[in-house]
């Protein structure tokens, strides 16, 4: 019987993979549901097992079954690993994602699974921590804190009870790597957590998954059930969030697992000393934990050999937004932003010029193409007034209105603030008002209504008679009003930056200020920087 591989990743399913799989079952094929390789343009992707390896076709419609089976389908892609998008990757963490049946324990073991855990369990806890330190692995959740040092603190902390908590809240727009790994290779995360448990002496672990990820929740639960004996005496449990972005912040997440409002705790004490239920706790992102099996199996040097400066190893980059080759791209740090967006991402899907790229989710800065030379690593992005965060890259074409995006950043902060500190809780609401006033001083007309209201950009202004007059035309604001509001906005950002307890209030200024700095024309200012690609 022909063996056929079709992804059950949420993206693939949303694009019709279930119907395609059903059609192949009907046609008598044996269908294996895998995770996604992560090039969404070719999903739903079908791979047929042949003597030459798996041959891919995609995107495939349910009606195309016959043509795929007799190899006459026009979307024949050859071996997926040979496509330029995949051939240029270094897949340390995502090596199995797309290749295996996610919950099949034999498949996992046959593809190198558990080698890292077996290595770790033959070592003393301190030795495991030393290996993770030597690998140079830094937390992939955003802040980039060295994972080995965090583990050392928990190992050294006294106490009979310790916890491993996996942060799978992944709330940033433009990020989906945690979801893909949990749906496509859940044992990799489980193995990483079991290694962490051995390294610090923890017996129990929680995976806190956002409620927006039902498929990841189901897959993780199934995988935990099936691998319980393999990881015993370590025990794992899934906890489901309840729709609060701030619960991605590590202390708010701990509060949430404890059954409380997800409010941020002041630090110290660090969670490593007094974390979940007051006990020493390792809290790491999905990708940090999932990087560990490779490090233990292949050695710290193999991991550290890849990377750039103090950013070692690989980063699963997520190409999102208006980009042609959107998806997951794992590569060593140091590739430039421009390479990621233009060469690998293929530029915009709309075919229009790239105008802005937001890196690192809703708290990340917007960059113009003139900054595409930036190497992708923690330090370079921090020096350029941004962050790589969870490595989500959201591409916008030239129809974007940056004043509107700045407003959205403030609006999001206001909606998601945990309410603990004033600069974040009140400042973000003021921020929306100030940006509204700036927009009101601008002469160009608005297109659209209500939530979709945006100003036209120069090239779009044609017949203004069709556009409803904006209040600002009827009641022009005083001369210089825009400028003084911009000064006010910068002040406000300063207050939020330095007066907030956590990065939600503290980093919301990044998208706002970067929009102001790099795209002043959208706020009524003169063009400051020559934009190279335009």
């Amino acid at each position, binding site marked *: 019987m022909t063996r056929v591989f079709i992804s059950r990743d949420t993206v693939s399913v949303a694009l019709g993979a279930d119907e395609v799989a059903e059609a192949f079952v009907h046609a008598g094929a044996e269908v294996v549901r895998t995770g996604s390789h992560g090039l969404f343009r070719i999903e739903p992707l079908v791979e047929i097992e042949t003597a030459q390896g798996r041959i891919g076709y995609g995107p495939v419609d349910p009606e195309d079954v016959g043509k795929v089976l007799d190899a006459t389908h026009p979307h024949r892609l050859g071996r997926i690993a040979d496509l330029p998008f995949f051939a240029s990757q270094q897949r340390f963490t995502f090596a199995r994602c797309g290749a295996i049946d996610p919950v099949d324990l034999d498949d996992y073991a046959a593809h190198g699974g558990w080698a890292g855990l077996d290595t770790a369990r033959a070592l003393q806890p301190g030795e495991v921590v030393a290996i993770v330190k030597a690998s140079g692995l830094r937390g992939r959740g955003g802040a980039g804190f060295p994972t080995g040092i965090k583990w050392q603190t928990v190992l050294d902390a006294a106490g009979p009870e310790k916890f491993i908590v996996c942060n799978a809240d992944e709330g940033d727009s433009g990020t989906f790597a945690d979801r893909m790994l949990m749906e496509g290779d859940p044992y990799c995360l489980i193995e990483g957590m079991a290694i962490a448990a051995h390294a610090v002496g923890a017996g129990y672990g929680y995976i806190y998954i956002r409620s927006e990820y039902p498929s990841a929740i189901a897959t993780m639960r199934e995988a935990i059930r099936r691998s319980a004996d393999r990881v015993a005496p370590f025990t794992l449990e899934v906890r489901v969030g309840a729709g609060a972005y701030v619960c991605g912040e590590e202390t708010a997440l701990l509060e949430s697992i404890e059954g409380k*409002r997800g409010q941020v705790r002041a630090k110290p004490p660090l969670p490593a000393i007094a974390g979940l239920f007051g006990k020493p706790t390792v809290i790491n992102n999905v990708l940090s934990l999932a990087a560990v099996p490779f490090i233990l199996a292949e050695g710290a040097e193999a991991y550290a050999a890849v990377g750039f400066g103090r950013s070692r190893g690989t980063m699963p980059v997520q190409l999102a937004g208006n980009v042609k080759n959107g998806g997951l791209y794992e590569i060593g740090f140091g590739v430039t932003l421009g390479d990621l967006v233009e060469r690998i991402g293929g530029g915009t899907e709309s075919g229009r010029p790239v105008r802005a790229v937001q890196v690192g989710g809703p708290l990340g800065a917007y960059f113009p193409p003139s900054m595409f030379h930036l190497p992708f690593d923690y330090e370079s992005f921090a020096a350029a007034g941004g962050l790589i965060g969870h490595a989500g890259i959201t591409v916008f074409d030239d129809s974007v209105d940056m004043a509107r995006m700045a407003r959205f950043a403030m609006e999001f902060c206001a909606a998601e603030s945990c309410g603990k500190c004033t600069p974040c809780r009140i400042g973000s609401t003021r921020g929306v008002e100030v940006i509204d006033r700036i927009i009101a001083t601008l002469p160009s007309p608005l297109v659209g209504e209500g939530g979709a209201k945006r100003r036209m950009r120069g090239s779009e202004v044609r017949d203004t008679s069709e556009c409803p007059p904006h209040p600002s035309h009827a009641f022009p604001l005083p001369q210089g009003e825009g400028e003084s509001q911009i000064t006010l906005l910068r002040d406000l950002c300063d207050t939020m930056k330095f007066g907030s307890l956590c990065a939600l209030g503290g980093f919301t200024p990044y998208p706002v200020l970067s929009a102001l700095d790099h795209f002043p024309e959208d706020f009524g200012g003169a063009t400051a920087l020559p934009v190279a690609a335009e």
Partner: protein
Amino acid sequence: MGASAYLDAIRRLMPRETDTRGALLPLLHGLQEEFGYIDDALVPHVAEALNLSRADVHGVVTFYHDFRRRPPARHIVRLCRAESCQARGGNAIEQAAIERLGTSMGGTRADGEVALEAVYCIGLCATGPNAIINGKIVSRLDGPKLDRLLEQVTA
């Protein structure tokens, strides 16, 4: 809903949820799944079952966006409003949905049948604009596709 139905449900969910530490969120998720929303009348029972104050439980129910305090509309259309979906034309889809359903973002249609809610990213950011319509995730929305989908829920 009578108090006895609530007590039954709590008792049924209790052995699973209350021997675990931090049982409040899992219990509330379970109750909302069963009743569709967290009735204010449930709060004292939950508080008693978990040995918490009513204020604690109320505080949690109101903090999280997922928990509803009113019965939900029959159909729920959740649109992603986050940046990546905006970059792919999400604002136009939002506008179209508002017009098509005759309700605002966060509102419910006058007949109480359809609610339009915002969601901030569902992790399909390269194939937006995305939505969750009655629990089913739909991707690559455009005008005609949205119309077709909304027709099914508003028919």
